[in-house]
């Protein structure tokens, strides 16, 4: 299902662009905190970036992630995620699209909160910053879980496996580097991760 005919300029460009996804890039190295730099600022800029990218990933498959197809937010038969917040006081089973909406919404509020993610030079990060970041990243990880387990066919059909994989690797190396997600939470994609990320 090649989009562009080989030999055409479009195809050449496409090939070149694809290559940049793998070319000599050691994502593991790239996520390390450069010596002397502030850890919180380093983490913050990554969190915002990952949020944007994961949101984009979900945005490409959300047409087939519906109340009907995914009545519960899950990662395969073994994992089911429940939502809890001020409105849903008890952990509540929601459909995947509902859950995703609440999740993205919630993260957006967090990262735009100046008290949590200050953008003025000199304003310190709050004491609980890394705590909040862990929550954000754990929730973002669930998007990967759901997309990989339930919607990978769609990703493949669009020809964007390499793109999603690269994003996942980057994300994974990052959370590992700074121990930002519990091993337990990483469980659902453990096997895939061990194949993909060395």
């Amino acid at each position: 299902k090649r989009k562009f005919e080989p030999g055409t300029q479009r195809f050449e460009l496409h090939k070149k662009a694809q290559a940049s996804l793998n070319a000599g890039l050691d994502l593991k190295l790239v996520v390390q905190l450069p010596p002397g730099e502030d850890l919180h600022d380093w983490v913050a800029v990554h969190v915002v970036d990952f949020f944007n990218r994961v949101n984009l990933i979900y945005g490409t498959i959300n047409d087939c992630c519906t109340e009907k197809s995914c009545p519960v937010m899950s990662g395969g038969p073994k994992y089911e995620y429940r939502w809890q917040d001020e409105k849903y006081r008890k952990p509540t089973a929601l459909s995947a699209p509902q859950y995703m909406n609440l999740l993205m919404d919630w993260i957006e509020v967090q990262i735009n909160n100046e008290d949590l993610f200050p953008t003025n030079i000199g304003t310190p990060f709050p004491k609980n910053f890394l705590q909040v970041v862990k929550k954000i990243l754990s929730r973002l990880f669930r998007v990967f879980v759901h997309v990989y387990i339930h919607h990978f066919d769609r990703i493949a059909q669009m020809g964007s496996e390499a793109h999603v994989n690269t994003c996942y690797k980057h994300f994974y190396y990052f959370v590992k580097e700074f121990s930002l997600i519990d091993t337990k939470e990483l469980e659902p994609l453990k096997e895939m991760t061990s194949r993909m990320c060395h």
Partner: protein
Amino acid sequence: QIQTSPVPVRKGGKDEEKRESRIKSYSPFAFKFYMEQHVENVIKTYQQKINRRLQLEQEMAKAGLSEAEQEQMRKILYQKESNYNRLKRAKMDKSMFVKIKTLGIGAFGEVCLACKVDTNALYAMKTLRKKDVLSRNQVAHVKAERDILAEADNEWVVKLYYSFQDRDSLYFVMDYIPGGDMMSLLIRMEVFPENLARFYVAELTLAIESVHKMGFIHRDIKPDNILIDLDGHIKLTDFGLCTGFRWTHNSKYYQKGSHIRQDSMEPSDLWDDVSNCRCGDRLKTLEQRAKKQHQRCLAHSLVGTPNYIAPEVLLRKGYTQLCDWWSVGVILFEMLVGQPPFLAPSPTETQLKVINWENTLHIPSQVKLSPEASDLITKLCCSAEERLGRNGADDIKAHPFFDSIDFSTDCRRQPAPYIPKISHPTDTSNFDPVEEDSPWNDTSEDNTRAWDPQAPSSGKHTEHAFYEFTFRRFFDDNGYPFR
């Protein structure tokens, strides 16, 4: 196994029930496009960081600093890096700037003198309307412009400090170059004495050489794009048509479907559309002057004037860096003769004259040019195979016209023959006055909020065109441009 989300802290007040979905759909094409660019940028950012560290070490070694001093310098750099990381998250929007005056109008927007509210620093701010950029198929060009301005750490090129966008517009915030552009100076002086022309063309040669060394071809060198700085030295701007031969600079990447439209640089009837001409009553002034001003309006309509563009570019024969040296020949001619060599009533006729240069290029005999000047013009305005510059800029520097120029010293550090008069920091008298009916004054809707095309609250499919547009210069001296 059931996992429960941690309890989120929601800020009170907002009624989330009425909120509609934040998740928007994106086309796979847009997603892939964004990801590919993003990965490129991740690598680039990483390498730039390493380079800054290396550079610091090298400079410290040269300066022979003590170990304690070195440690101090490193600390400063690392702090700057951390601040930079933070500022990358800060959203910018046009409310952070106050417009002082319009400096020039282009095909897609305008350039104005603006003041950054928090620091009071002055900048030139270029605004492009997205819908025009998209409808005229100029996305690749805008991208190229952003890239070259963002990458250039080069005294010959106007520095870009920030680029950002809101729903309707793209913004470039760059150095304000107060001496006006070469076109304004030409309009005022009509012809340049040979000495002045020599100085400018020598600097232009060095400037173009530096652009070529960065791997770009400008393609659109013209007097409007040559600015004169505080000290009388030149800087290049407007890289809208410049190309670095990157995939993101290829127009074909920004079109849907399989119809591939022409590159706007290709000869087209667009040049005949003079509806953008803003001359109005200015045509009534002195004929020579009026002609030039009218020409200037033509230059600003749609894709610019073909007056300075090399024939091989117009003929779509494939072109190289040599095409920029052709433009230098045309500019030298215009400076010494008082009008460009292929002047014609319409862009199409100009185009024909350029293509037919062998018969149309005449240096009028009543204009007294030195033999060296005439010789240089004819060696630049000729077929690419014979053009000076085939072995690089040194070809041109070695021409007898430049015998009195010492290229071995840093030209920018030498005094310039003409120093623009600038009586106060916001003096814009070196720019031709323009009418003020700009997109800035159009604030009918709240569409100017800082805005990320891939952020969830937006999501038109064509928006992938402007992904990864936002930029912030590392060395911006905490909000002050370097002087």
